[in-house]
């Protein structure tokens, strides 16, 4: 293979890859160190932003992928002739928030915090694969325990569950 500028090689890889590319994978293909890859990725990210390109570099699922800038969403929706996709209900988001911060947690414990019996909500979230059963609580009835999924992180554009702001910080907002 004739030697090419590494940055354009990485850009080309990101363009054709359908799944997020990890720095490891890129470093294997390009045959440069992971540190060099990280540096070049950063350069790419900055260039896209500085030149107001129609491309952005996003980090997700411990990998990198190319996507569009949020401010251009209206045009893309027009191209696909779809409106903005439906969002989760308030009840679903509250339940998700409780599960995300208090996992593993049972249905009864979720209901106690919300003050509402939300039987259907948990099922919907399970079906959408935003939460999953992670075990059973060793208490009478051995109720199922729920936790968030990788799909949850992807949906909200988080790399890690620890990217959620600490609960106490949310309280400070008052």
């Amino acid at each position: 293979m004739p030697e090419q500028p590494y940055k354009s090689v990485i850009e080309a890889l990101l363009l054709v890859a359908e799944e997020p590319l990890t720095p490891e994978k890129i470093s294997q293909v390009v045959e440069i160190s992971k540190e060099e890859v990280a540096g070049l990725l950063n350069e790419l990210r900055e260039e896209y932003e500085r030149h107001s390109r129609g491309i952005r570099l996003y980090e997700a699922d411990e990998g990198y992928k190319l996507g569009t800038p949020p401010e251009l969403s209206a045009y893309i929706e027009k191209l696909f002739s779809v409106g903005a996709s439906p969002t989760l209900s308030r009840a679903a988001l509250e339940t998700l928030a409780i599960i995300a911060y208090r996992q593993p947690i049972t249905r009864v414990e979720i209901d106690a915090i919300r003050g509402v019996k939300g039987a259907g909500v948990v099922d919907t979230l399970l079906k959408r694969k935003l939460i999953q059963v992670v075990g059973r609580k060793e208490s009478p009835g051995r109720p199922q325990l729920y936790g968030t999924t990788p799909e949850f992180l992807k949906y909200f554009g988080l790399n890690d569950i620890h990217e959620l702001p600490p609960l106490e910080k949310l309280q400070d907002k008052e």
Partner: protein
Amino acid sequence: MAYQVKLPVFEGPFDLLFHLIQKQEIDIWSISITEITDQYLEYLRAMEELNLEIASEFLVMAAALLRLKSKRLLPSSSSFWEEEDDKEILSIDSTEDLIRKVLEYRLFKEAAFFLREREKEQKKIFFRSSRQPRVYRQTRQETIWDESQEPEKLARLFQQLQERELKENTRLSFTVTEEYGLRQKMKYITDRLKRSKSPLYFSSLLQSHSVEEIIITFFALLELCNQSEARVWQEKKFGPILIEVKEA
């Protein structure tokens, strides 16, 4: 509709309680349980007056609040309170306990708000993935024939599409849309009523019996009643709906 009263919608009793406490603009720990209980009940009454369905959780909370309020009036040593608390969703032992629960709920409400913002932001980003081109193809809809054109043209189009499907090895899907305008339907009903000597059955107004048609016909009928153009009645409960022209 002559007037509309707007009541804020709450996700649950804690949501409503927090709203009430916040409205008082005092430190949450110094709330008066009596006042909060009264305001809470007032809100439920307003809901009732507007014929809004009150979820059972709101009533359970009302009972819990009243219990707390009355507890303060009785000597604490009273054996009346000794009975076993059943482990309900809403077991509230004291005002402090109530406040703690409201505050905890409030935290997650904030967290849900954070998630909502993330969600909004994420929905605006599009990625190249194997899934998107398919969406693109699926949603490219165009009307190529409607009732104003010759039926033969539809047959020809269908044949062409079938050939294309074979040639390009793709799958094409067809949707037949029926469109009913409310105005058209109202006009259709009044025309029918004028021509008819005897009352008409609702079912006789339907042509395709699709859900959409039933709904729009019913809407049209309600609108005609509202405009005093038609009179509608049933002989018995769940009986067929009869319609006649309302004499001016």
